């Protein structure tokens, strides 16, 4: 790697994004693709050069930033972040490619914001200094807000975007107090994560600080019951942004738990121990998300809630406090980051072709769109954790980890897993193979006619370009499913 490799990984999308925003649509698209490709190449190069035998951060860059506060510009990657950086760059590229050029001068601005968000999220994964981490954490919110609002779908994108911003800000500003508190109350007098980890505060102080940090992360992930913004935001999000939003942004929260909560607060207990509360919330989220997914008729909302359920596994793995569970969580972060964007892409294309997001309006699509149906099947199976596909590996590791932490939790989580096939397969079967009947349509035969009208459009299966977008995601689902060592071999220490 070049000496400034890590800086480039966040700076390139940010500078590129600012430039792209000023360009006319086609030029903007080309430049943003170029920026995203180079970023992905840099990230992949980093993962390739990553040495699994080295303990701690690699490729570090440390420059004094604010000497009065002992804050440094300190970047580095370790086994937790290395794959997430790659994932972010990959999803960023796919999001850029998925952006249509037809929007006039607005296209350039959208692409610019998309790259800015990618850069911000890369910065979150790369920062080793808490203050720097916070700057990126907040900065990525601004492009997300603008994309959600100005390019959002549905009737109330402004409401959804503002709800998202206020929710996440309430958490992250409390984290700001936590960051200040860590500086003073742990005696570390530093924002440098390894330094702070070396200063464990007393349990009651840890209790308070844990709360201040965790509230930001559980909202961002989101963990049940802090998911109030999730449905509105995911439903409103424009597709390209939703890929990065669902695929990567939630991961910043889970990543932060692993990066900050676990090493900094070994024993956050006063009235109760937070470390024992978190896994229960995670399991509650697994159930709640799955049950809500069952109840949804809106396709995007269904995927949104399934995402909530799957994020529960990641959090459960993190708070199982053993290597297996936490490695499983990391693997699952990557998996989830591949599956959910693929699902949302497929849903978006389905909606494009039929003009509705109502699950019950779909039927018998498979004969007309065999390719789409086939890909949909693979991604659905991956999502519900079929062995041989990627999600199985991660969820299995998480469950093993959870078992050694608490068998009760593992059993509960396992039974939550049973719900996933129900909502995924019901969706798949209903949309692809169900015969046409007017009964389960909300508007009876009028609805059937409307849906039939949409489906009577000429044969429009997935094109080569769309397949090419999905190909890397689906390929990686197989690769990780069959050869998980690819991910886990970097996690040996």
């Amino acid at each position, binding site marked *: 790697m070049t000496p400034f490799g890590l800086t480039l990984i966040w700076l390139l999308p940010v500078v590129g994004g600012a430039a792209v925003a000023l360009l006319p649509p086609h030029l903007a698209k080309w430049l943003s693709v170029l920026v995203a490709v180079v970023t992905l190449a840099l990230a992949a190069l980093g993962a390739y050069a990553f040495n699994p035998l080295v303990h701690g951060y690699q490729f570090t860059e440390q420059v004094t*930033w*604010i*000497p*009065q*506060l002992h804050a440094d510009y300190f970047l580095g990657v370790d086994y937790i972040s290395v794959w997430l950086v790659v994932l972010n760059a990959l999803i960023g590229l796919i999001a850029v490619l998925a952006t249509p050029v037809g929007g006039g001068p607005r296209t350039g601005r959208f692409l610019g914001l998309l790259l800015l968000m990618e850069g911000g999220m890369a910065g979150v994964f790369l920062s080793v200094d808490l*203050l720097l981490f*916070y*700057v990126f954490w*907040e*900065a990525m*919110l*601004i492009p997300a*807000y*603008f994309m959600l*609002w*100005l390019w959002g779908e549905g009737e109330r994108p*402004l409401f959804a975007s*503002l709800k998202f*911003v*206020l929710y996440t*800000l*309430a958490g992250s*500003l*409390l984290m*700001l*107090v936590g960051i*200040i*508190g860590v*500086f*003073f109350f742990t005696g570390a007098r530093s924002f440098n994560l390894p330094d702070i980890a070396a200063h464990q505060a007393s349990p009651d102080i840890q209790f308070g600080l844990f709360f201040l940090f965790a509230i930001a992360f559980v909202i961002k992930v989101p963990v049940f019951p802090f998911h109030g913004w999730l449905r509105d935001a995911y439903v409103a999000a424009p597709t390209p942004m939703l890929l990065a939003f669902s695929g990567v942004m939630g991961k910043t929260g889970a990543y932060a738990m692993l990066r900050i909560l676990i090493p900094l607060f070994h024993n956050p207990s006063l009235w109760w121990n937070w470390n024992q509360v978190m896994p229960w919330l995670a399991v509650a989220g697994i159930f709640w998300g799955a049950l809500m997914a069952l109840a949804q008729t809106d396709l995007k909302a269904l995927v949104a809630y399934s995402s909530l359920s799957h994020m529960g596994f990641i959090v459960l793995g993190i708070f199982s406090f053993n290597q297996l569970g936490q490695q499983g969580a990391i693997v699952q972060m990557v998996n989830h980051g591949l599956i959910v964007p693929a699902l949302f892409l497929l849903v978006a294309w389905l909606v494009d072709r039929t003009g509705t997001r109502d699950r019950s309006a779909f039927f018998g699509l498979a004969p007309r769109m065999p390719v789409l149906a086939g890909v949909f099947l693979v991604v659905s199976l991956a999502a519900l954790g079929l062995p041989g596909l990627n999600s199985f590996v991660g969820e299995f590791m998480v469950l093993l980890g959870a078992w050694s932490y608490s068998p009760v939790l593992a059993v509960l989580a396992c039974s939550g897993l049973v719900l996933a096939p129900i909502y995924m397969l019901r969706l798949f079967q209903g949309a692809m193979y169900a015969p046409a009947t007017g009964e389960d349509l909300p508007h009876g035969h009028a609805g059937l006619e409307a849906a039939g009208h949409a489906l009577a459009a000429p044969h429009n299966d997935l094109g080569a370009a769309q397949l090419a977008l999905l190909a890397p995601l689906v390929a990686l689902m197989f690769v990780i499913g069959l050869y998980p060592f690819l991910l886990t071999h970097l996690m040996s220490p």
Partner: protein
Amino acid sequence: MILAAAVNYSWSQAQGDLAQVSPFLVVTITLLVAIIVDLLLPAAARALAVAGIAVAGFLGAIAAALLLHAAGGHAAYSGFATGDDFAVFFDVFFAVLGILTVLVTHPYLARRGFLAPEFYVLLLAATAGMMVMGSATSLVTVFLGLELLSIALYVMTGFARKDTRSQEAGAKYLLMGGFASAFVLYGMALIYGATGSTVLSTIAKEAGSNSGSNLLLLGILLMGVGFAFKVSAAPFQMWTPDVYEGAPVAVTAFMSVGTKAAAFAIIIRVFLQGLPGVSTDWGAFLAFVAAASMVVGNLGAIVQTSLKRLLAYSGIAQAGYILVGLLGARPAGQDSVLFYLVAYLFMNLGAFAVLILLAGPAADSDRFEDLDGLGRRNPALAVVMTVFMLSLAGFPPTAGFIGKFFLFSAAVAGGYTWLVVLAVLMSVVSVYYYFRVIVHIWSPGPVEERVPVGLGPRVAIAVSVAFVIVLGILPSLVLGLAHLGAAPIALAAGR
């Protein structure tokens, strides 16, 4: 004794004392020159000439301040004023504020039809008053600066002579301000009674030895009420929205930054340098005022329909944040306040500069709807206004974020964690109304002619936005300057 000192006051002593207040002197001389030039020139050329003279005067004041710093400022006029780095910091601050104000104001005054050289003369007078407040080390000089500033501002508020709202605001400000001054004066009299002196260093010694005196505490309370009035902190903020709304927007811009900064200068001076021995007493008072300001300002701002009133309430809330930092540990607390004032100067003046540009010939445009479609009409202006709003809301990577971070971390170090938690929760509320402004900027609106942006406003806005972003990314240089500026206070308080 005073008489004897006056008799022995030699020319060389006078020279030495004058040198310590040289930035103030430069501004005052400029003011006199401006009046004479105004009389000599033909009517058409007056306003521009006086504006140029004012800018030259402010630049001269900056130069004088830097020379003063290089020479090493110290106490002057038997401890009534000083040329220390704290004073130098504020001299430069107010001169920069003056320059930016002239740059954004000139085209506005012409468009609104009340372009008159008097405006700049008043501006110079108000700035001179602020500079006196920055270098005052005695209650008498504090009051002198306060009145010089206030009287000039009363007139400026009512400057739109044919606009009844402006007239009303001027009258209201005069009455309310007079009230506040009376409070300050009463408090000062009681403090004088309790300590036997108006010079801060003497008060510090006396107050330390008889800290339980009720006379002293009552004096502090009354003076604190008056000061809280001037920084528009709750529950003494009532005048702020009305005056901000009624005054011509250019005056509001100047006043919102200048009055606040000057009042904080004297609060720091008087409380931290003059009354460090009784800090637990005034600390409780200021903590209450800070909490009330953050709650009243942020909740009040939500329901506003006028941008000027919104920024008024935002200013009340910001005063609360600054007070939180002021209560913080020494010296980080004072450093953070000075840093935040610099950030506030650029982000608030920048936001007002955009409003000034939007003002029509008949009236100021301060409805939210006036911003609609700005993103299409003037994309560059829309982007910078968005940056200013994000900075006021405290988003990184802007000056507003890092400034708030300094304030809050100083307060946590000083043991005011509860106040910081309240502050961040109120910051979440503030995001709602700052984002309302952003929403209107980027909403579709009437397709009008784009707003013309002259050279002066262009320079002022460019400088402001550059500072807002650079301070957010590389704050250490200005933080170092703030530390330098606050050093005399830390030194005095430590004795």
